[in-house]
C-alpha cells in the first residue's frame, strides 16, 4: 500500500528536502473561503494539506485554533464539510489528510468514516487523542481502505511508548515539538530535535514536527532534522487578522512561500 502522502515523502527524501504541511479547519471562516485558502497555501508552496475536523472540545489546541473551530461549528461545519474540503484539496493536487479528535469519528461510524476518507482521495487521518490501546477498530478499517494512520508522539513519551506508537504509524509520525497545545511560539523548543532523534532510533518512518512553528527561520531550523514541517495557527491567524479576501489570501500565499523557502534553505 502506498498513498499519495507516502509517495510525496519518498520523492522529497530523494531530493533531501522536508515537506511543508498546512493545516486548516473545514468551514473556516466559511467553507467557500476555506477552499480559497487551501488553494493559496498550495500556490505558495505547501506540499500537503491537513483538514481539521472542527470539534467542540479541542483539548490539544490553543486559543487560535479553538476560536477558528468554534467559528466553523457556528457556521454549521460538520462531517460533510470535512469530506468536501478534503476532496477540494486532493483535486488541487496536494496529498491530503484529515485531523480529527476521536469523538466525531466514533459518532459518525469508524467504518463509514474510513470509506469516505478513501472515497474522497484522502491519504489518511491524524488522530491526536486516539491512544494505540483504543485503536483496534480504526486499525482494521484504515487498513481495509489503505489509509495512513498518523499518531502524535510527545517529548514526554517514554522510549517504550515511542517504539509502540511509531509501529502503529504510517505515512508519517507526528512529533509534537513541545509539551503544550497548538499555537505559535517565539522559538522552536530544543525538545523537538531531541524527540526526533529518539524517534529515529526506533523507527525509519518519516517524521513531521508540529506545534509552534510559524516563521521561515523556524521552518528552516526544523527542516534540518525532520522530514516534514507542520504549520497551522500561523495561517489561521492571518485569516483572523486580514480575512480571506484578496489581502488575506495574498498574505497566506506569502507565508507559504516564505516557509517553503526556509525549508529549501535547510537542504
Amino acid at each position, binding site marked *: 500500500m502506498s498513498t499519495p502522502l507516502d509517495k510525496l515523502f519518498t520523492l522529497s527524501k530523494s531530493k533531501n528536502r522536508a515537506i511543508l504541511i498546512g493545516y486548516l479547519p473545514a468551514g473556516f471562516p466559511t467553507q467557500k473561503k476555506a477552499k480559497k485558502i487551501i488553494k493559496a497555501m498550495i500556490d505558495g508552496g505547501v506540499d500537503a494539506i491537513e483538514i481539521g475536523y472542527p*470539534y*467542540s*472540545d*479541542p*483539548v*490539544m489546541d*490553543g486559543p487560535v485554533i*479553538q476560536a477558528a473551530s*468554534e467559528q466553523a*461549528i457556528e457556521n454549521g461545519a*460538520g*462531517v460533510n464539510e470535512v469530506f468536501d474540503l478534503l476532496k477540494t484539496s486532493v483535486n488541487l493536487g496536494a496529498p491530503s489528510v484529515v485531523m480529527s479528535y*476521536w*469523538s*466525531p*469519528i*466514533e*459518532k*459518525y461510524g469508524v467504518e463509514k468514516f474510513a470509506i469516505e476518507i478513501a472515497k474522497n482521495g484522502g491519504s489518511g487521518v491524524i488522530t*491526536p*487523542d*486516539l*491512544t494505540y*490501546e*483504543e485503536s483496534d477498530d480504526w486499525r482494521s478499517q484504515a487498513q481495509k481502505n489503505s489509509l495512513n494512520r498518523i*499518531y*502524535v*508522539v*510527545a*517529548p*514526554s*513519551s*517514554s522510549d517504550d*511508548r515511542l517504539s509502540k*506508537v511509531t509501529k502503529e504509524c504510517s505515512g508519517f509520525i507526528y512529533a*509534537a515539538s513541545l*509539551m*503544550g*497545545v497548538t499555537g505559535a511560539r517565539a522559538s522552536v523548543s530544543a525538545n523537538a530535535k531531541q524527540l526526533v532523534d529518539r524517534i529515529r532510533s526506533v523507527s525509519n518512518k518519516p517524521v513531521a514536527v508540529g506545534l509552534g512553528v510559524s516563521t521561515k527561520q523556524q521552518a528552516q531550523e526544523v527542516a534540518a532534522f525532520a522530514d516534514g514541517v507542520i504549520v497551522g495557527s500561523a495561517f489561521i491567524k492571518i485569516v483572523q487578522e486580514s480575512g480571506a479576501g484578496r489581502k488575506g489570501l495574498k498574505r497566506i500565499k506569502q507565508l507559504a512561500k516564505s516557509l517553503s523557502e526556509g525549508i529549501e534553505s535547510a537542504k
Partner: protein
Amino acid sequence: MDIAKIKSFDSDVLGHFGPYGGRFVPEALIAALDELADAHLTAQADPEFHKELDNLHKTYTGRPSIITEAKRFSEYAGGARVLLKREDLNHTGSHKINNVLGQALLTKRMGKKRIIAETGAGQHGVASATAAALFGLECVVYMGEADTKRQALNVARMKLLGAEVVPVTQGSKTLKDAINEAMRDWVTNVETTHYLLGTVAGPHPFPTIVRDFQRIIGVEARKQVLELTGKLPDAVLACVGGGSNAIGIFHPFIEDKSVRLIGLEAGGKGVETGFHAATISGGSPGVLHGTRSYVLQDKNGQTVESHSISAGLDYPGVGPEHAYLNDLGRAEYRPITDDQAMYAFSLLCKSEGIIPAIETAHALAGALEIGNELGKDATLLINLSGRGDKDVQTAADYFGLPL
C-alpha cells in the same frame, strides 16, 4: 466477607468498564497517567498510606459522617424510612474532600508541587484549595465564567484559601469548558503539576482513583444502616453529575443484589425539552474528556451544552462505571427536573432543618418519588452529598425571596 475489599465490576488494566472508560487523550499525557496509576496502586497496597488518610479523615474531615433519620421528610416520601448520609457535615461542606485529600497525598508521593482542578459548583475547587493550603501546594482552579457568577460565594472561599481562580470564557462557560482548560494546562505543565480531577470521569485511572477515595461513604453507611436497622436498605439514592458521590455510596452495595442503586440526574427543564444534563437518561454512548461513556452530543459528535439549575450537575458527560452499571441493569438512572429538585430542597429545609446543596436536592426529589412507589415498609439511604450555603442566592432568586 470483607466489604472494604469487594472489587467486583472493576475495570480492566486499561481502565475499561465493559465497553466504556479507557483513555482518549493526547500522547503527551500518557506518562503522567501511568505515573498516577502506579502511585495509586502502590499507595493502595501500603498500610502507611491508609493510616495517613484515615487519620486525616478523623482529625480534619470529621469522619465518619453521621446518619440522620429524616422522619418528617419521610411523610412526603410515602412514609418510607429515609436515612441521610451526612456528607454535608464534612469539612468544606461536601463529599468532594474525600477524593481531594486522597489525591493530595498521592501528589505529595509523586513529588509534585502544583495542583490544578476544575470546578462547577465550586465545592471541588474549595476542597482542592483547602488541601493545597494544608499541604503547602500551589493551586489553580478553572471554573466556567457562568459558574463563577452563580457560585460567587465559593469563588471568594477559594481565593481566601490562597488559590488562583481562572474564569473560563470558552464554549458554554461551564464545567465542561473548565475541564478543557485544565487539560490544556496539564498538557503544558505535566512535569510539575497534578491534575486533581473531581469526579469519576476523565481518562483512566481517574474513574478508579476517585471511586476508591469516595467508597468510604458507602463503606461507612452500609455498616451504619445495618447497625441502626438490622438490615440492608431497599434502595440507595444519590445525585449524579460526573457521578463521584453516587459511585462512592453505591460501590460497597454492588454485591448486595437486593439493594436497588438509583442515580438521579439533572433533568433541567425536562429531558424532552433538550434543556437538561441527564446524560444517561437522555444521551448516547460517545467520547468526552478522555473517556468513553454516555454523552450529550449531536450527530457530528459535538458536545451539546447541558442545562441545570445546579452548577455541580451541569455536565454533558458521566463516569464510565455508571454507564456500565446502567447497561448491566445493576443501577438505574432517572431525571429530576429543576422544579422537582427545588421543591425537595425547600422541603428538607422546612421539615428537617437541613439546607442541602441543590445538587443533593435532586437525590432528595428522587427519594420522594421512590418512597411513594415503594411505600412505608421501604428503607431508603440517601447520600446527602453537600450543604446548601453556596446556593442561598440561587434559591432566593428561585423562590423570589428578597435578600
